[in-house]
């Protein structure tokens, strides 16, 4: 671990952190002792209180977060070197440009420097923040040892899509938001960049088919998106015969058409399916599965996994959404993906014959400012359109990646927070004008308030609804639902509580999002999800818990 001052302090007297154990409050429970990454704390057995070795303390404040009696106080700076900056491509040519905008760590030196910032926390909060719970300190240690095979082995325990996740995850509210340094008010280890570095230096190993007793199992999987990929991968490795049914003409679901190339290059997006097919997984595209077909599938397979995702777009209750020129994000993204690959412009997407609607400089209004909305807006820019995103949340609380927002703005996307569409008006049956009202939101947990008195209008040519998706339960409808695990609302899991991830107010780095609560909510949703179970039918991914992230 490299130690340096962050932020750099001129006054050397205040330059090191100091730990104080409060008398008559410390009960000697050792919660802090077992979790201090630098072994700076010990127990004085005679007095039965914790004692600190100031010289070893790096100011990460794990002890403060984990002490059940708040009996320990740390003052002074965090001793950690500056985060290695990860560069973004300069504003690209834009029109028709599909090259990836984010760059990874560029050399081993950078990667090693970044890996050395990790404390290898004994109870790593970053792992809880990561939705798939990758062993982050584990793979970082492997990077530090230049052992990429080991790093892949560690990643493989929890994920089959490290190259994808490290590009598309919103790290600021996931792993990096809950890194100890970030919880202590500093800058997190660049976990996403390190994970990506591993996959860039050494491709993700293909699934290895284990010949074994399970070899005669035959499983059908509905859906070829991330959840379907993961299920197929596991089953293939376990030696099962796997057939995947995909309703679209190409596999990958969200990965294929949902995330544009400039975020997720097609080599990366196509990698999992290339490997799966090589491993003998049978893929049937253009094979939609209707609710009634599940029975039929069960007749030809030993088991069926429903991994169809959550793909029903949310439509706002706004007058005019049924006008021509209004569409949902997935259809827009799918078609713009094809148009961009073909090197054409917005006109390619045009089905209507209204003059001017698809011309250069047409205005695309995107409802929402999350991941998908940004993808839509940035794709529109590349098709030669102007793009305006509007989101009713306050910028402080909106679930938008800060880096993505910066990139989008640099590419000329106009993003307006604190505003919402209250009506769409058409001309000749096609959408032409949006009425936009201001909103106000004071706290993250409050619904924004619409200020009807403050309305502006905007001339537009096209509207894309990118406010999220919900789950179509029709496939799993007939299954009996039993909760996965009993979860008491409100009360956090004991180990989550003990790890200290819930103890701090939200780090600024994570956009005032209480990362621990977010992560725990995801976890509880997963575990308390009504788990539809019938003989030989399993449900996985968003199809189980509703829309979420890729991992």
């Amino acid at each position: 671990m490299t130690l340096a001052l962050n932020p750099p302090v001129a006054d050397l007297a205040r330059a090191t952190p100091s730990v104080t154990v409060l008398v008559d409050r410390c009960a000697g429970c050792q919660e802090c002792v077992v979790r201090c990454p630098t072994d700076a704390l010990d127990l004085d057995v005679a007095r039965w209180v914790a004692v600190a070795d100031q010289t070893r303390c790096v100011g990460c404040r794990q002890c403060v977060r984990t002490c059940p009696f708040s009996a320990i106080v740390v003052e002074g700076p965090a001793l950690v070197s500056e985060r290695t900056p990860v560069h973004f491509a300069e504003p690209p040519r834009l029109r028709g440009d599909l090259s990836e905008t984010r760059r990874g760590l560029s050399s081993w030196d950078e990667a090693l420097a970044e890996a050395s910032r990790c404390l290898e926390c004994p109870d790593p909060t970053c792992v809880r923040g990561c939705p798939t719970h990758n062993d982050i300190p584990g793979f970082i240690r492997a990077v530090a040892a230049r052992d990429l095979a080991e790093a892949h082995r560690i990643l493989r325990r929890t994920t089959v899509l490290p190259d994808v996740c490290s590009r598309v995850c919103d790290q600021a509210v996931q792993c990096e938001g809950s890194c100890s340094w970030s919880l202590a008010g500093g800058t997190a280890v660049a976990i996403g960049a390190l994970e990506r570095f591993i996959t860039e230096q050494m491709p993700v190993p293909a699934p290895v088919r284990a010949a074994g007793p399970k070899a005669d199992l035959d499983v059908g999987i509905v859906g070829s998106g991330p959840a379907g990929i993961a299920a197929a991968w596991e089953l293939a490795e376990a030696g099962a015969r796997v057939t995947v049914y995909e309703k679209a003409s190409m596999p990958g679901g969200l990965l294929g058409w949902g995330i544009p190339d400039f975020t997720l290059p097609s080599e990366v997006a196509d990698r999992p399916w290339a490997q799966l097919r090589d491993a003998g997984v049978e893929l049937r595209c253009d094979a939609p599965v209707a609710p009634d077909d599940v029975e039929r599938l069960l007749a030809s397979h030993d088991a069926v996994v429903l991994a169809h995702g959550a793909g029903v777009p949310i439509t706002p209750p706004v007058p005019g959404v049924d006008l021509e020129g209004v569409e949902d994000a997935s259809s827009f993204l799918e078609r713009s993906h094809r148009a961009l690959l073909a090197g054409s412009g917005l006109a390619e997407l045009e089905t209507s014959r209204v003059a001017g609607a698809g011309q250069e400089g047409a205005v695309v209004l995107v409802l929402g400012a999350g991941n998908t909305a940004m993808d839509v807006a940035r794709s529109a820019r590349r098709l030669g359109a102007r793009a305006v995103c509007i989101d009713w949340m306050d910028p402080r609380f909106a679930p938008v990646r800060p880096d993505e927002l910066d990139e989008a703005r640099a590419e000329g996307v106009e993003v307006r927070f604190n505003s919402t569409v209250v009506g769409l008006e058409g001309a000749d049956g096609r959408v032409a004008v949006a009425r936009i009202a201001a909103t106000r939101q004071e706290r993250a947990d409050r619904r924004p308030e619409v200020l009807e008195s403050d309305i502006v209008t905007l001339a537009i040519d096209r509207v894309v609804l990118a406010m999220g998706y919900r789950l179509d339960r029709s496939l799993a409808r007939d299954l009996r639902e039993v909760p996965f695990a009993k979860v008491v609302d409100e009360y956090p899991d004991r180990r989550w509580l003990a790890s200290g991830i819930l103890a701090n107010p939200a780090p600024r780095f994570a956009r005032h999002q209480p990362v621990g609560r977010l992560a725990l909510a995801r976890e509880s949703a997963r575990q308390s999800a009504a788990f539809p179970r019938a003989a030989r039918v399993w449900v996985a991914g968003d199809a189980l818990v509703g829309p979420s992230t890729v991992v």
Partner: protein
Amino acid sequence: MTTLTEAGTAVDEPAGAARPAGTTRDPVVTAVHLRPVRRHGMEERFAPTDPAPGWDVARHPKVARLLRNRRFQFLLILPNQIVFWAVILLGLLGTVVPGLNFGTAITWYLWFCLVFVMMVVVGRAWCAMCPFGGFGEWVQRRALWQRTQKVLGLGRKLPEPVAQYGFLLSVGSFLVLTWIEETFNIAGPGAPHATSWMVVGIVASALVFFLAFERRTFCRYVCPLSALIGTVGAMGSVAGFRTRDRDVCVACETKECMRGSSSGYGCPWYTWPGSADSNLACGLCTECYKSCPSDNIGLFLQKPMTSVVAPTRRRFDVAWAVAVLWGLVIYQQLNATSVYGTVDNWLNTTLHLRYPDPVDYVGIIGLVALVMGGAAWVVQHALARRDVVIPSGGTNYLERTSRFRAFFVPLMYGLIPVVGADYFARQLPKFFQHVPRLVPSVGAWFGAGSTHSTLYRYHLLADPRIVLVQVLVIALGTLGAVSTSWKISGRDLAGISSRPLAVRLVAVGLALACGVSAGVLYVVMHAAP
């Protein structure tokens, strides 16, 4: 069972894995590598104070069920809550005759006496049912008995510069309260509304502290009764909630008894059952018992005086608390003698003060406490072995070490029984003479009670017999103190003294001297309340 998680990863869960209801399975265990806990020396550290496993009453299934019930403590507090709101209301609205007002009658003829009995017999039994802390806690938790997650109030920590003095803050507030009580003759009992205002004052200050600070900061540091109950309660036969198997606690990675779980709050008193070595700071609130996921907490009994004698880590704040509380009770005894009356009158006219003049109050208490400290200083000066090095302690008030402390602290602990006996004996006249008044005072609600009734004038015991009982109580307390002083000095002082036997005899002598002074004073007082 193998289940598919969101990412389709197979997760193996041992069949029937014990997992407390209402928690999610921990998904990240493979990435958690906690450092090993330190255990070396643990056995020796706690062996002298650990209660015997057979003395765990929570092993009895019925007791266990009761203790697990979240309504249990609420139901303990509720009757007291009703009584004290009645005290407030009746004190303000009821009859102005103190002996006939239910508020004053129950408070001063019965309650105060019972509190001392509970202290001596149990320990912090009163704390378990206290309506003042109970009320503050209800408000703070926004619930009467339920486990809620959001507390009301600021949740501050008591600042360390204050907290380092431990129970001395509580000793201070007891001195202040007693002074107010003497000034307005509240416990006399004086005008009933005075008792009401006193109770209102305590409830209000408790509420303020409960809203400003975390958990039971009020009880642990501020409550006027806390230090008294804590020190005298060490004689009690309830050890409190303690760990059943310390190895399990030390290995426990979640410490629900401290943090709280879905079924109970974390210890409101900042006590960890895993390291408690006396009943000093266990408020018997049952929360840890409810929270522990491993059912590793018991409610233990102990032999009387165990928490006086056994602890290997003694506290400097408790030692001073003993000295000062002893000063206070001696002041009150002196105060009731006729000689004092004469001296006091003279003082008040010369200095233009009124009763209770602070010079006497602070002077006498301070003098007695200093005499105790001085005695310890003389003993250490005369008998300490110079070649023994006192191991250095912490840097704060509670944990510093010195040769003086090494002698003063054990000597004061040895006196706890006689101090306790003295406080108890002082309540007896009011009890024996006036407790029958409770009946007419209840009658007074319906206009039936009167100062002429037989019960109003009935005494359970009268003057010479009361003194006899008081002297007996003191004798018992002295006997207890002689025994504890002998044992404590044998263990804690003999090794650091040049003449081990002498130091033990001196310790016993100090206990005897205290007992004799208190006894003589009771004879002189003639059962004055």
